[in-house]
């Protein structure tokens, strides 16, 4: 599976002021471990499949029907696409966004909208779908976004950082404006 990351910035009038696209480099350890848990037929694998959740706690993963879910609702900042201000290079052991931007309208906060998905589409020898989220800045000041990622549900019930990317260039989101992050996930035969 290949990912690309698209970033779009709008001002408070809704006008697009920036668009960029980059290869997403970074499925993390937790993603590989959750897929492993789903591949296993056991609800309590032995030896355990261990990885850290977004709080840093080491979790013994289990196969579960909600694993991988990231269909975040409005205001949810622990599931779905999440953004932050950290710029440290990605490592396979990252378990969260370095400096997440919290949900809210206070200083340094942003308002997370609902996650949306497209249906898988086949074109040539590729099959892809997109996962998108808009995040609005009503904080009263400019917020500079430097990282994005994807938080997924994993069982026992908690959340894991499956993907983290440092943006190719920092993106300033004006007060009243919004940033829209789109991950395209694609398999190629």
């Amino acid at each position, binding site marked *: 599976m290949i990912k690309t990351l698209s970033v779009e910035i709008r001002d408070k009038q809704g006008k697009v002021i920036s668009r960029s696209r980059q290869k997403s480099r*970074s*499925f993390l350890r937790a993603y590989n471990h959750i897929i492993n848990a789903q591949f296993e037929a056991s609800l309590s*694998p032995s030896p355990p499949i261990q990885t850290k959740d977004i709080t840093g706690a080491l979790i013994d993963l289990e196969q579960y*029907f909600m694993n991988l879910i990231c269909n975040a609702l409005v205001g949810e900042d622990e599931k779905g696409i999440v953004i932050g201000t950290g710029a440290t290079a990605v490592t396979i052991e990252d378990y969260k966004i370095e400096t997440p931007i919290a949900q809210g309208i206070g200083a340094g906060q942003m308002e997370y909208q609902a996650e949306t998905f497209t249906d898988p589409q086949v074109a040539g020898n590729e099959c892809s779908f997109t996962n998108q989220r808009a995040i609005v800045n009503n904080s009263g000041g400019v917020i500079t976004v430097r990282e994005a990622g994807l938080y997924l549900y994993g069982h026992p019930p908690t959340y894991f950082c499956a993907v983290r990317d440092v943006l190719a260039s920092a993106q300033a989101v004006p007060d009243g404006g919004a940033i829209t992050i789109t991950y395209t996930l694609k398999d190629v035969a």
Partner: protein
Amino acid sequence: MKEQLLYKIVVKDKLGKVITKRSGKARSLLRQYTEVKKVNMSNVTCTCKDTGGTDRNVGTGSDMLEALTVQAAAGEVNWGTRVGTGTTAVTISDYALETAIAQGVGGGQLDHLACDVIPPVVGASDSKFEVKRIILNSSGADVIVWEIGIYSKMDATYFCCIARDVIGAAVTVPDGGSITVFYYIRVAV
């Protein structure tokens, strides 16, 4: 880095001596893999072909408990690693091995042992896990293998093919011998 699939094949004769080794990048995570994962992530159903070529509505909620299960008991061939005799090039919309070799000890059949899923190993910049299946030839004659793949549960009811590879040159599994197929699912930053 994308999510990668790699494979290794080891063929042994009836004395247990290794007579063929082959490894390479697998080219072919198929559309069913994308589709089932999309359902897992979004919790919204979509259509996916089962291994018989019939369109199925992939369930949501608790129907997805066993989605992507690959680990299989001995003799189980609805899911787990499979081998076959087909040589047609892979396309993203393949929904089964072209000519899967049936379970058994009769002419042209192979005896599938358990399909194991090994917990991930994390390196400096990657995380990967192994899917391994030993398949015995007790058919009374050589069996020639041209293709390999992975079948998984689609949901609680149906099965789908998530990977298929035509290997570069046929491998002959002698009577009394075995073929072991290793798949590695890897992510790296």
